[in-house]
């Protein structure tokens, strides 16, 4: 086996500390056909050319590159090997710059160290196998779960590039949370209006033909992996044909039964056949089977009789299970808010006129339960409003993190209350104030300058207490400086911590995607890959990954679309890197120890053959299972036990 050892001086970076002549002398004493050559600046064009030429001209079969960190130039030199006609995995880099020259003072010691590392590389290299990249066919279609801003933005841009997208939305409406908000920070745009272009394009835009929108639907099961997932979706009946329905709402008035409207957080009622709010899209009602009289065996036909369109209402619509093949999945299921009943001193649920911010958004909305009128339970206009920031956020008894968006909507509320009810006294109780960005401060400045607005900083949630004083309510408090006080509050608005959406745990189980310690979907890397989950082919966008505002949710949707469009290209095959784990079925004892250790869920168990196997598309080559397998049945390609021990022995020799 002819092996070339190529030593890069890296200017003086390496040669200052390591005596290449001494290395040459010692290396050439080793058994085997070894060639040693120094090449200056091996990563330069000249250097690469020299390396290629030397490999070819001398018939080298393997190469040790004694140079910089493989992080820097492993790929560079692997490409040179390929060009020289060698398998690129028959190369081993020795990081003598980062791990020796830069960290070892004495030249003699550095040379000795470099020699040992080179020896180790030679030992391991002799055992290395040539490895090949594999390719598999892929399905370029995409599944988007959740039709909020993040999911829709991604779906639309994927559809615009000509790709098929299936959107699964749990509720009858699309648009997510912001379509329920009358106005949006920071620029006080109307929520539904701002989102309309996106929603409209999804429903009937130029590329809507590429989008299959499944509302009142849920993902039940996912099998397969990146490039080839098979998704089972439960499609619940709407009982209304959204294509035929003209959205006139005639059917709703005669309906004799009603229930609390969950879209208005139970602040008002809606019928069994209903639109959650005026302007909801798709503009077609749905029938709530839980209360519809027909579901109870009664022969009510009032809605159908009132409907001016024939067959728009379909009483025999039924649940169906459908299957779709997709190559990538985007999770965009948004977030929820913390249950304020867990902070009893704030009076939520036990005192009148204490609302969460989500509820208050609906109170402010002209299509909400009060048609935008802000009044107390007694029908009076509140003279004082207390807004409690950080309700459950920055609190080790509740949620440790800052929810990031609350301060901004709190000042949005400040603005809207001031506009609707001029002269109302508004108190902001806050732990910290947070509104980073170039636009986000404006509403705060307005509030600060407003003489009817007051700020109280508190240290701990237990320093606040909402108390009844006769017919009135007040917040008694101890502020951050320890001063006690009390502020009247006819109405209270709590800004609860943003928490993972209901059901995101079970969705995570279906997708085998992991959650972080707070229950949000866990990103591959918090800074660099926040739109990717740890499972290859499953992407994240929006508030399901972390509390965020619409801007970031939309950007993340686009980021995910970018990953998907660049990774999965129709007609192009998916390349599988060969550094994966492989189970030797003859050696596998079927003990199932490996099953739970893989962070990427790449291992599955064949109950018939009673052996495990690794899905090479999902495997990231981390080696966890290789270490765990007590039978020695799992081999880590390019990091086999023999290679690793040879390397250790080479260093110690």
């Amino acid at each position, binding site marked *: 086996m002819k092996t070339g050892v190529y030593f890069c001086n890296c200017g003086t970076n390496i040669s200052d500390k390591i005596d290449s002549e001494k290395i040459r002398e010692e290396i050439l004493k080793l058994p085997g056909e070894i060639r040693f050559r120094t090449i200056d600046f091996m990563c330069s064009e000249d250097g690469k050319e020299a390396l290629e030429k030397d490999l070819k001209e001398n018939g080298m079969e393997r190469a040790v590159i004694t140079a910089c960190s493989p992080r820097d130039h492993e790929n560079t030199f692997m490409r040179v090997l390929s060009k020289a006609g060698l398998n690129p995995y028959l190369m081993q880099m020795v990081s003598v710059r980062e791990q020796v020259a830069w960290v070892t003072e004495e030249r003699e010691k550095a040379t000795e160290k470099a020699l040992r590392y080179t020896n180790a590389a030679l030992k391991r290299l002799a055992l290395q196998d040539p490895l090949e990249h594999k390719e598999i066919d892929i399905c370029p279609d995409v599944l988007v779960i959740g039709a909020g801003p993040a999911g829709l933005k991604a779906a639309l841009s994927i559809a615009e590039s000509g790709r098929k997208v299936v959107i699964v939305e749990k509720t009858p409406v699309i648009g997510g949370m912001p379509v329920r908000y009358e106005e949006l920070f920071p620029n006080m745009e109307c929520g539904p209006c701002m989102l309309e272009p996106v929603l409209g394009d999804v429903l009937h835009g130029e590329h809507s033909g590429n989008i299959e929108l499944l509302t009142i639907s849920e993902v039940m099961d996912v099998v397969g992996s990146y490039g080839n997932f098979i998704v089972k979706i439960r499609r619940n009946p709407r009982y209304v044909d959204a294509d035929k329905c003209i959205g006139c709402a005639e059917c709703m008035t005669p309906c004799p039964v009603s229930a609390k409207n969950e879209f208005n957080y139970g602040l008002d009622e809606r019928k069994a056949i209903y639109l959650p709010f005026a302007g909801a899209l798709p503009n077609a009602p749905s029938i709530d089977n839980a209360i519809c009289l027909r579901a109870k065996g009664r022969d009510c036909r009032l809605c159908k009789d009132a409907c001016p369109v024939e067959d728009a209402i379909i009483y025999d619509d039924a649940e169906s299970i459908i299957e779709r093949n997709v190559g990538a999945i985007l999770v965009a299921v948004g977030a929820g808010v913390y249950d304020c009943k867990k902070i009893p001193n704030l009076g939520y649920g036990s005192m009148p006129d204490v609302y969460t911010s989500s509820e208050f958004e609906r109170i402010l909305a002209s299509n909400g339960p009060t048609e935008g009128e802000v009044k107390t339970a007694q029908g009076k206009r509140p003279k004082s409003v207390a807004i409690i920031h950080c309700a459950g956020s920055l609190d080790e008894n509740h949620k440790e993190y800052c929810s990031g968006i609350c301060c901004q909507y709190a000042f949005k509320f400040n603005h809207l209350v001031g506009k609707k009810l001029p002269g109302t006294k508004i108190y902001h109780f806050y732990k910290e104030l947070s509104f980073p960005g170039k636009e986000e401060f404006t509403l705060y400045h307005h509030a600060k300058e407003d003489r009817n607005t007051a700020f109280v900083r508190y240290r701990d949630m237990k320093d606040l207490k909402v108390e009844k004083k006769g017919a009135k309510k007040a917040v008694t408090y101890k502020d951050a400086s320890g001063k006690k006080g009390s502020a009247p509050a006819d109405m209270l608005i709590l800004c609860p911590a943003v928490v993972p959406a209901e059901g995101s745990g079970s969705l995570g189980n279906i997708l085998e995607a992991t*959650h*972080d*310690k*707070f229950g949000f979907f866990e990103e591959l890397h918090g800074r660099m890959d926040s739109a990717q989950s740890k499972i290859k082919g499953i992407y994240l966008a929006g508030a399901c990954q972390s509390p965020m505002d619409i801007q970031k949710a939309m950007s993340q949707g686009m980021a995910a679309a970018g990953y998907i469009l660049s990774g999965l290209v129709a007609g192009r095959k998916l390349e599988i890197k060969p550094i994966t784990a492989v189970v030797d079925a*003859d*050696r*596998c*004892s*079927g*003990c*199932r*120890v*490996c*099953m*739970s*250790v893989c962070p990427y869920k790449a291992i599955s*168990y064949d109950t018939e053959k*009673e052996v495990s196997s690794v899905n090479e598309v999902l495997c990231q080559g981390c080696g*966890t299972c290789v*270490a*765990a*397998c*007590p*039978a*020695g*049945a799992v081999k880590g390609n390019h990091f086999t*036990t023999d290679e690793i*021990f040879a390397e250790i022995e080479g260093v110690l020799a």
Partner: protein
Amino acid sequence: MSGKPKLSMYWATACGGCEISLVNIHEKVLDVDANFEFMFCPCLLDTKKKDIEAMPDKGIAITLFNGAIRTEENEEMARLLRKKSRVLIAYGSCSYEGCIPGLSNLHSREDHFKTIYLDNPTVDNPSGVVPTPETAVPEGTLRIPSFYERVKTLSDVVDADYFIPGCPPEPHQVWNVIEAVVQGRQLPPAGSVIGAGASAVCEECERKKEDKKIKKFYRTYEMIPDREKCLLEQGIVCMGIATRSGCGALCPKVNMPCTGCYGPPEGVLDQGAKMIAALGSIIDIGDVKGLSEEEIAKRADAVISSIPDPAGTFYKYSLPGSILKGRIS
């Protein structure tokens, strides 16, 4: 002397169970006799060392060498038998990996002598005599073989051709090997483990295996395990996952955990380390999201501390043959 190929069996530091295991092939012993001249076995025959020394080199066809190398004498016999045998087989766990005698590598020779000759309550040794290789007596100097600092395996001192694992090896596996030789079948390359499988005991164990999560370990007397379920899943430290197959999963069959006597599966360098890595992967300390490192360590410690005698459990048979070979003082 007949013209049949010669078979010998020697015991170094061993318990005698290996000899019994050979006899345990029952009536097949007659086949052995028909095919070999069984000519050396201090446990059963009266041949002496000088008789072996007098033989030509490679005069013995096969030597089954059992027992670990604890003393100078053990090594001397190993060298002699290596020289005189065409095929030298490390027979049984002691000569293959050091086995129970090898656990003494957790202590020094001085500690052993102190415990055995000085501190032992049933020993009366007022002048504190401990064995030394040479002792001066009026008649001259007495020599006894020295006691090594550490127990070694057969292949630590000579090249062994094959290894038959087991404490002791299972008779059917012993017979498999003898039969192969008798029938003149091609033996695997030198250095191989023979008379055993390549996978782990679980392969032969019929218990139902699930994905494993262990919250607490139990000692065998603390519970009567379910007969159908994997013992490890029930919290019994069963070494089967990290032990070479070949025995037929005898211990799990009778509701006892595998203790590991067949040594590491093919390709595994260190049985104990593998077992630790595997258990580390399946110990269940509950949801740790949001817990501090100290809290996580505390929970892990609580589960780990329910494993009695980790060194003696994970390295019961394999300490001298492992990577560390014993306690590093």
